């Protein structure tokens, strides 16, 4: 009976010990993926911002500018690209819609971002774009990879359509979560006019004919939860100017937008709760199950060996009956 039990325990021990590395290095890359059908919105606000009044071409202070950012996964497009890419792909259609204090549109910039569902590496396919311009992204955008490391990453900037490092600046605590803080500075760079302008009748082409150009600079900050790679908070010190040309009436430059853009409080709370939930799921694959099953495997193996050793130990000899003297015959 003991031998049978020790064999069952041995089978369980091997099962648990095998499960540990398989879960971490085989299952985790296949299960921890951004869902292809993800839909997510985010509201950011810039209080006391400066905004260009296109009627007077003068910059003016406004109480608030709101940016609504939506990400929407295109499942059909992802499946189509997966066939040629040979790996799991997510296709995000995004829209950054900027609204002035009067509720009117300031700008809207659509994007299509295609990336590997697990590694976050960009995948290049037809349709990848920013505001209708085809782009070939390098690096990451919006989200960091699972198990984010304490190092600089290459981050794609949609305004300049270029990639530059976003620097790891230390580990912090944000609303009870351990996060990695990243910062990227984009120096003043000439950027294209948005395809959709806030005033009807004005197009990027008509502005280009005046000789006026658009320049942009930003300092971008992200607080990233390292297990999920999801930013739980973001800020941007964003500046835009129009420079030169006849549109400015002889002025060298005018501020088109300047403001410290921050996530709205209710969205911060929602994001932190969502990331905390997803963090537990990722930790189950990378830590809880692998370490738990390894520990259990060792325990079961020890128990199995103990039972086996006990079953092999020789039993106490049975009491011997004193032999009765046999009659002797001479």
């Amino acid at each position: 009976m003991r031998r049978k039990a020790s064999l069952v325990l041995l089978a369980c021990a091997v099962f648990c010990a095998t499960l540990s590395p398989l879960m971490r290095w085989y299952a985790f890359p296949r299960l921890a993926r951004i869902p292809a059908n993800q839909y997510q919105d985010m509201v950011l606000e810039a209080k006391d911002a400066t905004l260009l009044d296109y009627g007077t071409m003068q910059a003016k202070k406004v109480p608030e500018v709101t940016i609504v950012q939506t990400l929407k996964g295109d499942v059909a497009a992802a499946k189509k690209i997966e066939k040629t890419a040979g790996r799991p792909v997510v296709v995000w259609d995004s829209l950054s819609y900027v609204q002035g204090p009067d509720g009117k549109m300031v700008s809207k910039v659509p994007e299509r971002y295609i990336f590997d569902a697990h590694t976050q590496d960009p995948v290049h396919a037809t349709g990848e774009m920013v505001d209708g311009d085809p782009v070939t992204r390098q690096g990451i955008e919006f989200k960091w990879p699972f198990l984010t490391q304490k190092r600089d990453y290459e981050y794609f900037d949609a305004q300049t359509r270029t990639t530059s490092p976003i620097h790891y600046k230390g580990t912090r605590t944000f609303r009870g979560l351990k996060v990695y803080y990243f910062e990227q500075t984009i120096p003043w760079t000439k950027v294209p006019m948005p395809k959709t302008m806030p005033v009807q009748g004005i197009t990027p082409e008509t502005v280009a004919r005046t000789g006026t150009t658009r320049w942009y600079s930003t300092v971008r900050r992200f607080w990233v939860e390292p297990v999920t790679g999801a930013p739980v908070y973001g800020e941007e010190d964003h500046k835009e100017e129009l420079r030169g040309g006849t549109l400015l009436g002889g002025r060298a430059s005018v501020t088109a937008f300047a403001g410290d853009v921050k996530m709205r409080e209710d969205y911060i709370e929602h994001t932190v709760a969502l990331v905390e939930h997803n963090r537990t799921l990722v930790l189950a694959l990378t830590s809880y199950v692998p370490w738990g099953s390894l520990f259990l495997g060792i325990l079961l193996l020890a128990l199995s060996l103990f039972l086996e050793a006990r079953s092999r130990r020789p039993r106490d000899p049975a009491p011997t009956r004193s032999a009765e003297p046999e009659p002797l015959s001479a």
Partner: protein
Amino acid sequence: MRALIAAATGLALAFALVLTISAMGSPTGRTSPRPLLTTVPSHP
């Protein structure tokens, strides 16, 4: 010999479980019918 069979059984079961779970993967679902927003939502 019986110990070897027991160990092999544990190994095979672990592989079978992980391969099955990984093959099932996560459901891809369908593209959300919700639009890309051009109004400010009141809450998340």
